[in-house]
């Protein structure tokens, strides 16, 4: 879009344009939806498909929502993908050794908490840049997942039905023809995490202080915010979120593999970035992240149905992320 050509004609047009750019990503999302609706008239805009999408994005959503917590502080966590793999492996190993589902899940979440605590310690107490610190732990967690699993996929009888049926289950909504409509459990988990992160970031003093750190960490410290402690807590929450995402993934595919979470990290960061383009000051917001997650999920779903090659799909998704962030950077530079 050429902004220069449009803008000098009156302030009303300019104001409308400004609003367009703040909501540009949202409008882009609606355009994408409309595109698929037109091209896939019978299958895309149906309740079963949307329930399906909600399940497909639920793992990514949980990781992206909790990633928003550290990104609000202006930090990153690159280790979430390998933490998701490690958590899945850890739970599967406990199941294989005859452990109860509850204990496997709890220990996996605990590993997420400890991993997040290591990230937090490196970033806040030692003072390593988050990018470098979590790049290091990404490799460590990934290596640990390989060592624990012996590099193999754990599946079949080792995974108890009680665990894998959770992902297949859900709340019945009624029936369409022969098929039962179900709101998947995984989607419910994602909604619950969304609610928790929303309340945490937007309705508590902790969230307000995290935003303050992201705006200006030194000013926040001099203004009485315990920056180190809060940074530590934020990374721990992100770690738990990553472990939860990994468990959901393992439940859905009824197996655990040391690389299965790997792709989630970049998508999660991309979703937060897409969401940031929605806020005027360019701050992350968990509802923006939701829009980002939905954009990625809808594109994936629609393009798959249109039988677009998966590599072409990646090019398209990458291009859309670059376009959205470019728009919001241009907007910022104008100010």
């Amino acid at each position, binding site marked *: 879009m050429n902004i220069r050509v449009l803008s000098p004609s009156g302030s009303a047009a300019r104001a409308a344009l400004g609003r367009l750019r703040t909501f540009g990503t949202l409008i882009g999302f609606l355009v994408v939806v409309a595109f698929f609706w037109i091209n896939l008239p019978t299958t895309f805009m149906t309740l079963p498909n949307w329930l399906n999408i909600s399940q497909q994005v639920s793992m990514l959503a949980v990781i992206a929502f909790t990633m928003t917590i550290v990104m609000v502080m202006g930090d990153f966590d690159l280790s979430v993908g390998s933490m998701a793999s490690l958590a899945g492996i850890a739970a599967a190993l406990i199941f294989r050794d005859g452990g109860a589902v509850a204990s496997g899940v709890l220990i996996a979440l605990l590993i997420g908490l400890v991993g997040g605590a290591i990230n937090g310690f490196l970033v806040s107490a030692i003072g390593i840049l988050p990018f470098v610190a979590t790049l290091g732990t990404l490799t460590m967690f990934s290596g640990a997942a390989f060592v624990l699993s012996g590099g193999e996929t754990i599946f079949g009888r080792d995974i108890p039905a009680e665990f894998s049926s959770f992902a297949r289950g859900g709340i019945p909504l009624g029936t369409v023809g022969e098929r039962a409509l179900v709101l998947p459990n995984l989607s419910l988990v994602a909604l619950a995490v969304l609610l928790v992160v929303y309340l945490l970031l937007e309705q508590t003093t902790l969230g307000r202080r995290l935003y303050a750190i992201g*705006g200006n960490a030194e000013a926040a*410290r001099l203004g*009485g915010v315990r920056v180190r402690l809060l940074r530590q807590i934020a990374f721990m929450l992100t770690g738990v979120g990553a472990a939860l995402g990994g468990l959901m993934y393992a439940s859905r595919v009824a197996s655990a593999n040391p690389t299965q979470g790997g792709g989630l990290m970049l998508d999660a960061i991309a979703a937060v970035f897409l969401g940031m383009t929605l806020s005027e000051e360019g701050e992350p917001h968990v509802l923006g992240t939701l829009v980002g997650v939905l954009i990625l999920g809808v594109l994936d779903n629609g393009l798959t149905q249109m039988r677009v090659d998966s590599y072409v799909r990646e090019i398209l998704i990458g291009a859309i992320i670059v376009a959205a962030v470019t728009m919001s950077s241009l907007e910022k530079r104008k100010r």
Partner: protein
Amino acid sequence: MIAIGHECNAQRAPRALRLCRARALRYIFGIMFDPRPLLSLSHASKSYGGSPALIDAALDLLPGEVHALMGENGAGKSTLIRILAGVVAPDHAEIAVGGAPVVFHSAADAFAHGLRFIHQELNIVPGLSVAENIFLSQPYPRRAGALVDWARLNAAAREALAALHIEHIDPRGKIARLNTGDQMLVKIAGAFAGSLQNGGETGLSAKGGANLFVMDEPTAALTGAEADRLFAVIARLKARGCAILYVTHRLDEVFAIADRVTVMRDGRVVAVKPIRQTDSADLIRLMTGREISGVYPPRASPLSSAPLLRVHDLRTAHLAGAAFDLRAGEILGVAGLTGSGRSELLRALVGADRLTGGEIRLSESAALGSAGSKSGDLHITAASRWDPTAAWRSGIAYVPEERRTQGLILSRMIRDNVTLPHLGALSGGGVTLRRGREEAAAARLGEKVRLKARDPRQTTRQLSGGNQQKVLFARALAGEARVLLLDEPTRGVDVGAKYDIYAVIRDLSARGVGVVLASSDLAELVGMCDRVLILRDRRLSALLDTAGLTQDALLTACYGPGESS
């Protein structure tokens, strides 16, 4: 600053005399030749999103004059300068350079017409050398067609610095290693480069034509001696027939160097006067539109004798020992040259730097909240956990030196900034936000400090400098603080806001708050404080009573007994 205007002039008598002579000469010249303005701007208007920032403004710059441009923050000075610089397109404006009408489409146009700008903010490239920064906006001299001729570039930079009598800066050194004052001097040298030396063989002939200089608060980051160097350069430019538009909030500078003054208010030019026909009170009245009698409100109530804060041999990595008492209601000044430890003393008190020795005692009545719940004084030593969080909780409020980098979270609302240290008390059980309560507090405190803002939910970035500083004051007032630590509270703040801030400080003092006021503005220290603490070489060197204290005596004390300047 008003009360001491005469002392200032007395101090600068020799130069003032020289200026008078020059002025008289030019006056006679003016009658004989009626000099055409080097630059004239008229009917300049500009609105941003419907709200006018500049309304039919006009400005003439005559050859050989220093023209002061004054006005409160938001009066339209910046917009006017940006139009001259070609970076803002006016809705309407007529600009003539040397009598010929011109249109500035870009910064390059303004540059080509001989305009040079020194902006308030440092626009430096930290990774480059001093010489590279000086000639940043020009093509570097070449050798063999494509290679940069570093020897010539460095020689030209050395010459540009020498023109300002700056010998202590190496043009080959990285600019990032210099302190802020020196960086500013380099930028100033860059703007002047080529306009001072008479046909110096630098090979950088492209910059010969500069004869209009626009300086936006160039002395904000400079020490007195550095500022004097700048004034000497300005005098030489004047003598060569250049015109200088000088923007400042400091009245003493205006009376020291300006020939004429243009005053702006609410987007309009309200007065253009020769400097001889005005005085401080007149300028303040023109800028603010209200009568302000005496910038420094007098102490209303007698000082109590109850000590609030006792500091003994305080040490950090940046402070080598300071001891003093602060009484309830007292305003204690902290003076010293740049690098003497003024800010560092305040940082030690608020726990921003870790204590390495000494102790702070906060009397029982002063210590509030959790820290004061146990009986007895709050006693802080190097072994205590003492950080800004503990300080705010104990009733110590802090306004840091740099409001943009240390004070405010510019991306957040006024409300968030005001309540940040007090969130615990303003929330539900320290956990859930109570936005209504926060906004009510922010609105009430904003009114107290005369904050001009639409509502508490406005983004702090959108406020002018003076109003941003008021946000920090509102924050400091929010928690019923008993001790207030102020570091350069009025730097870069316009006269009206300054007066409001002084009134707030006085009011707090009258209610028993102890104030520690660190400042490089000697007039402010003499005008506001009961006693002044002098720091030298990062340690306490003297404690003076301000009764009968003059700025000269204070300055002498800052330099120390051995080396009075």
